[in-house]
């Protein structure tokens, strides 16, 4: 009856957001301070990705689009670094990077600072890997680079002429590349590469996107247009495969516990909702 105190079901059905967020933060922090070392499975898509890079012939040239923004870096950064580890460790793959995201060059610098290619693998900038910088225009940039890279850009991301770098010898257009990889937080970019490179030139393509964007890319993978779609959240799996544990694998404990907490919240909400309905019905 109105005017009476709240029942337990009212309280459980309307928990203040401060309590929800506070408990969530505690569950975030505890495994960070006391790591549990919970296991991480390797999914089929990550294995497909790994195999695609492993199967590249010696001397293969890979184009990577650092198309993610700072917002997606905590999720996609570890994945990008793990894949770079894989390719540079082989020693016989050339990696050319560009960005369709305006923050791409800064995030590439961040990834390289974490990767340390010269110290770790003896890789040389301009010989084994290079960054040709951010090119505005989204799909227009993708199409322009695919049609004629040299007509689109003549310098690397710092402004040094590309002719000075041996890695760019023979690189003309999309046909010069054996594999295209895209890391992005924008659906336009991941789908744009399907439209402008795979559809037009048939370049094999893989992409790693935010977990919430994976559903929109699944039809392309199912139709064979993309070799593999992974989410940045699977970086821990890739780090396990390339044996370079880093930020990706550290998140596994936290993700497990927080997701279990989410399910607890859903159960509490539903139990309270159903109980209130029955209470209201019996009165």
């Amino acid at each position, binding site marked *: 009856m109105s005017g009476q105190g709240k029942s337990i079901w009212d309280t459980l059905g309307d928990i203040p*957001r*401060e309590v929800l*967020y506070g408990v969530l933060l505690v569950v*975030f*922090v505890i495994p*960070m*301070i006391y790591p549990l070392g919970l296991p991480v499975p390797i999914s089929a898509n990550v294995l497909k990705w790994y195999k695609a890079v492993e199967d590249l012939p010696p001397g293969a040239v890979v184009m990577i689009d650092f198309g993610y923004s700072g*917002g*997606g*870096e*905590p*999720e996609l*950064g570890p994945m990008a670094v793990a894949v770079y580890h894989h390719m540079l460790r082989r020693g016989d793959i050339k990696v050319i990077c560009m960005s369709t995201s*305006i*923050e791409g060059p800064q995030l590439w610098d961040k990834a390289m600072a974490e990767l340390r290619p010269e110290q770790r693998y003896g890789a040389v900038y301009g010989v084994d890997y290079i960054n040709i*910088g*951010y*090119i*505005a225009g989204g*799909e*227009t940039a993708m*199409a322009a680079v695919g049609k004629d890279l040299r007509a*689109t*850009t*003549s*310098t690397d991301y710092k*402004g040094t002429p590309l002719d000075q770098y041996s890695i760019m010898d023979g690189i003309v257009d999309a046909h010069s590349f054996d594999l295209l990889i895209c890391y992005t937080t924008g659906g336009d970019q991941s789908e744009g590469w*399907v*439209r*402008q490179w*795979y*559809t*037009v030139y048939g370049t094999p393509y893989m992409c790693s996107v*935010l*977990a*919430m964007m*994976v*559903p929109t890319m699944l*039809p*392309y993978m*199912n*139709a*064979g*247009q993309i070799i593999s779609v992974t*989410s*940045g*959240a699977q970086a821990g799996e890739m780090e396990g495969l390339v044996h370079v544990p880093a*930020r990706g694998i*550290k*998140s596994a404990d*936290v*993700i497990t516990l*927080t*997701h279990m907490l*989410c399910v607890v919240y859903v159960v509490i909400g539903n139990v309270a909702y159903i109980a209130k309905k029955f209470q209201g019905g019996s009165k």
Partner: protein
Amino acid sequence: MELDLVIQIWLASLFTIWIYSIAFRDNDFFKFAEYTFVGAAAGHSLVYGVDNLRRYGWDNLMGGAYLYIVVFLLGILLYSRYHPQYFWVSRYPLSIMVGIGIGLSMRAVVTAEFIAQIKSTAGIKLIGVSDPITLLSNLIFIILVVTTVYFFLFTFPKSHEGGLSIIPRIARYGMMAAFSYSFANTVLSRYNMIFGRLDYIYNQWLPLPGAIIALPVALILLIYAMLPPEKRPWPKKQ
């Protein structure tokens, strides 16, 4: 550790805490961080706009491609949109951009998002499949694709009424499942990002001298800023 790196980590961590405070209450620290973000985003865009103009426009122009003068003029004309009388002049460069965009997307959409998808769906086997679960999955797949296309294609009311109403209903159930999958994945995405920031604070900032004291001070100041002015313990109103 170098001083500039220490200051950078301090600033980044404080901004992180101030932004997270919006989850609880709006406050001036959040507003300060928010305005910094908006300003930084606009400034960053401007920087790379100039960089792209230099690298892809000016360098080509200096290299002998004098037709780029026309492009530069067209680019400047884009800003005529702010003129009350001659705003229509900006439609010319915009038309070129729109035309390129339409041409690029239309030429590939037909193949990538229409024919390839239909081909893939048509290639799903229903006959000669021995495993019952695979057969059921294939059947559900085809049904959901067809019903979802029906849902979006036939939008006039009669196509969603009577005996035909079962089709959009099945499509809705399928889309509910798909959106729920997206929702759960969005939670995964966001939690990964939260972990990234908390990991930064825990592993980069807190080990720095003074940070372990600064954290509770920052939180106390935030709580103070979140309180309405009449409930603040200080300064006392006369």
